[in-house]
């Protein structure tokens, strides 16, 4: 009870602080308490945001970025989990052999790969989804390997004794066992993935939130820049919340050690 009260209190403090910050920004802008050339007042930013909503640009940028992340994430899961299952559930020798390579690949600076992906796949959707896939597939794979390696052998024996074949064991045992570590891995990699997406959109894209931010900067359209910044912040917040929600909905059980 005590802990919950403390946490709630902290949450309220954070929310109040943030609201206060925005209110102060708004007032300072309206009253021109500072030079608004480089940091426009909140009112101006909202006005520009409304303008962008009306001409559809804001919505297009947001939805394109969402699309890219979702597809990239989905592919990384569809590829990463089976691969992780194969590595973690079958030959441990082969897994030990190939894990160092995978680890080295995962350590390659993903930002350096952005130009490479653009070169390989062009400025279209492929390069963005590809780089997100790259960033996320390794954590998903490693998490699956960990999850599968930790499965209680008694559970596998129980399933086999009931006649379950390899396919059923994959879908009904390995997948749920990997769920908890995979969510943890995705959560920690998601922020990096989002950063990489934005970075890719600043360098080689014609749409998307990253493009919005940098194009505005390049054109010295400061209010639009700030709309982009706020949109990015909001997007990040929603993205994390969605993953948390998905985790709560999917993982309804508690693992016992």
């Amino acid at each position, binding site marked *: 009870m005590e802990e919950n009260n403390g946490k709630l209190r902290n949450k309220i403090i954070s929310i109040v602080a943030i609201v206060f910050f925005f209110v102060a920004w708004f007032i300072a802008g309206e009253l021109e308490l500072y030079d608004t050339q480089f940091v426009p007042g909140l009112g101006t930013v909202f006005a520009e945001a409304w303008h962008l909503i009306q001409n559809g640009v804001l919505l297009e940028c947001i939805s394109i970025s969402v699309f890219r992340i979702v597809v990239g994430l989905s592919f990384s899961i569809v590829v990463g989990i089976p691969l992780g299952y194969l590595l973690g559930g079958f030959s441990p020798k082969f897994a030990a052999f190939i894990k160092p390579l995978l680890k080295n690949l995962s350590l390659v600076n993903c930002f350096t790969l952005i130009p490479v992906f653009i070169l390989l796949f062009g400025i279209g959707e492929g390069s963005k989804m590809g780089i997100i896939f790259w960033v996320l597939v390794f954590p998903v794979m490693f998490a699956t390997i960990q999850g599968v390696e930790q499965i209680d052998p008694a559970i596998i024996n*129980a399933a086999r*004794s*009931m006649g*379950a074949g390899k396919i*059923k064991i994959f879908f*009904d045992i390995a997948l749920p*066992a990997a769920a908890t570590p995979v969510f943890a891995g995705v959560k920690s990699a998601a922020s990096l993935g989002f950063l990489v997406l934005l970075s890719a959109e600043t360098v080689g894209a014609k749409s998307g939130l990253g493009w919005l931010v940098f194009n505005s900067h390049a054109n010295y359209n400061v209010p639009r820049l700030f709309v982009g910044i706020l949109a990015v912040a909001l997007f990040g917040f929603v993205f994390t919340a969605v993953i948390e929600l998905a985790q709560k909905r999917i*993982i*309804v059980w*508690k693992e016992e050690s």
Partner: protein
Amino acid sequence: MGNVVTLNGETAQVRDEIVVKDLNLFYKTRRKKGKDAEPHEALRDVNLAVKEGEFLSVVGPSGCGKSTLLYILAGLNKKTSGEVIIGDKQVNGPSQDRGIIMQAYALFPWRSIIKNVEFGLEVKGTPRKQRREIAQSFIDLVGLSGYENKYPYELSGGMKQRIAIARALAYDPDVLLMDEPFAAVDEQTRSFLHEELLNIWEKTHKTIVFVTHSIDEAVFLSDRVAVMTPGPGTIKEIVDINLPRPRHADLKTTEEFGHFRTKVWQLLQSKTDRAVAIEAGNNREIVNEPQDMVI
């Protein structure tokens, strides 16, 4: 094949559900200091016949191979030589003819209770509505109606074990194999589970092979008790438990019960067996003290 005299005085043929002939198991172990793997003889010349509908226990000290034997019957472990026939078919791997219940319950934590029980039926291909009904009936049978939508982490140890039993029964195997299922449960719950198990057995007429290191438990539950000795594991003798059924907890205080208990205990007490057990234990970094055995 064996004969049995039924209550009306007729002689009927009761087939052997399980036949184990000259079973041997070698497996490689790594010894402490040496680098090479030496073949370790785990089971030697095990011969066993279990009648249809019989309740047979296997007792022995830790390390004698009784669980290994059970897993071979289940088809989860491989044998080196010999024959294992269940229901007139050779055992080559796990199959839905058999069900195994383990000490660690092994319930799937991510499935609700009823979905746990349904698992074998899913493999079998039973349509959804029927699956639900069958699973429900077995949950009721083990006395846990109302818990269908709970998750394993919400259940106590005894309850989990009952669900494990329901799950193993649901797809209607002919044989139930139980590996020290009540070892992790407290005394009172265990007593209760004994009576439940016997109830279920009498209702479903399954053949049960029950592994335990508790002599009391073995004698109380079974028609016969097979005594296994280690180094390498083999069946020393099988004791017929001629106690009337149905059996209730107060049976344990009777003289007849004590007679059978002593008989089994004596079979486990042979000095050479104890020494062999200790040596086998030493080689595998386990030392079996006589007080491991529950009396």
